[in-house]
């Protein structure tokens, strides 16, 4: 709250620059996500557009983390999300075993209008998953791979986090 004082009161000249009392801007939001791939400002608004932007960001994050085989960012942004933890564990176990993924990129096909309910957003979407193999260091598949899934019926439930000023994944279903 800004306080106003009467003009008749004598005041010493300030020697410092004034600080902004305006509401925090997106630039002031604390960093969330990998430092070089943070959650974008448009995904940190508590509305339908923000929820959809977060969905698209998280899908891109999956595509980013898969070749890196690092799962922690997926857990950080989905602390309650079982499937996020499962995928994160998959990546890390593959890394520990000297394996890696070939293919598997996700591409958003269509997103239905998000259903917002207080602190929660439910999203229904179709996503394409390219053919994918989990291979060892010789390039040999370690499990039967998957053919391209052209349009997987999918869903994501988001919770709004006031602390993070962002959506976080509560649960996710791919296909």
């Amino acid at each position, binding site marked *: 709250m800004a306080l106003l004082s009467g003009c008749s009161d004598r005041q010493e000249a300030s020697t410092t620059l004034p600080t902004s009392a305006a509401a925090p801007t997106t630039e002031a939001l604390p960093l969330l996500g990998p430092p070089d791939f943070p959650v974008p400002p448009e995904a940190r608004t508590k509305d339908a557009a923000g929820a959809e932007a977060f969905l698209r960001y998280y899908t891109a994050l999956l595509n980013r983390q898969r070749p890196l085989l690092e799962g922690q960012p997926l857990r950080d942004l989905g602390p309650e999300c079982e499937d996020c933890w*499962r995928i994160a564990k998959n990546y890390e*176990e*593959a890394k520990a075993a000297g394996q890696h993924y070939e293919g598997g990129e996700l591409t958003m096909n269509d997103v*239905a209008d998000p259903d917002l309910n207080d602190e929660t957003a439910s999203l229904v979407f*179709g*996503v394409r998953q390219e053919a994918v193999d989990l291979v060892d260091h010789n390039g040999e598949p370690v499990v039967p791979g998957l053919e391209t899934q052209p*349009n997987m*019926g999918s869903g994501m439930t988001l919770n709004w986090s006031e602390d993070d000023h962002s959506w976080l994944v509560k649960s996710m279903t*791919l296909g």
Partner: protein
Amino acid sequence: MRARIQHLLAITLAVCALALFAPVKAMACPFDGGCSSVNLDAGAATIELSGEQAARVVGVASAEIPMFVYRLRQQCVVAAELTGNCSPASIRTCPQQPGRVIDYFFVQRRPVVQPGEADVLDGFGVGDPIGDWENLREGCFDITDLNPPPSPGEVFAYFQRLPLPRLETRHQPPGNGLSGLPVIFYTDSPATQTFTVDIRGFTVVIAARAEQYTWHTGDGPPLVTTDPGRPYPDQTVEHEYESGTHTASLTVTWGATFTVDGSAPADVPGTTTTDGPPITFDVLEARPVLTDPYD
């Protein structure tokens, strides 16, 4: 349309039943998504369920059946997916009834496209499952009608009742021991045994193996080893006694793996023990005696 919905329901429940009862290690999908078709193509355990069965087992109103697909999840499975482990704290027990399969489940449901909603998402039609799984309820459910393969916990209950061998204790020197000379213990009884049992029509092969040997010396704390010991001169288990009469025995801790109708082996989630027959022997005090070698 109803037939299609029931088919979808059957597939979903079949996939989920696979997840429920398959060994934890083999269950997790190694890819981001789309694993359902893999499991189905693999021809693994398939349990079909009609809409009416779903209504009866899951306990939802029949009117809701066409609106959702349902699945049952064990907390153990959920925990394994999250952390890679299924801790005992994740296992919830339910009152059991003879001949029934009752276990604790989370019931989840997922919407399917309804008539009039066909344009909600490009490429999906009425009856297609879309959206996210949501928890509906949790509790004990009787799934006998689904005829699931035996769960690890059910196999463990059988394992505990198997006539596992009681390993005999061998000792050296044979007969009486001598104070100051350690007594060597070992067992040459088989350390593995395979049992084939029928559990609700499923052929379950349980391969038991001795995992730990606890040697009760009868004179001090027991000796615990993971090997069965060996006779002289390669002994690994020995104990030095005071003179007197002593009784020793061997307790073996058994672990096991199991297969169901030729599936990949999985660990039985627990161990059991057998006590071998005791042996009694004397340990004599050696007394030096001077003798005349020319006498």
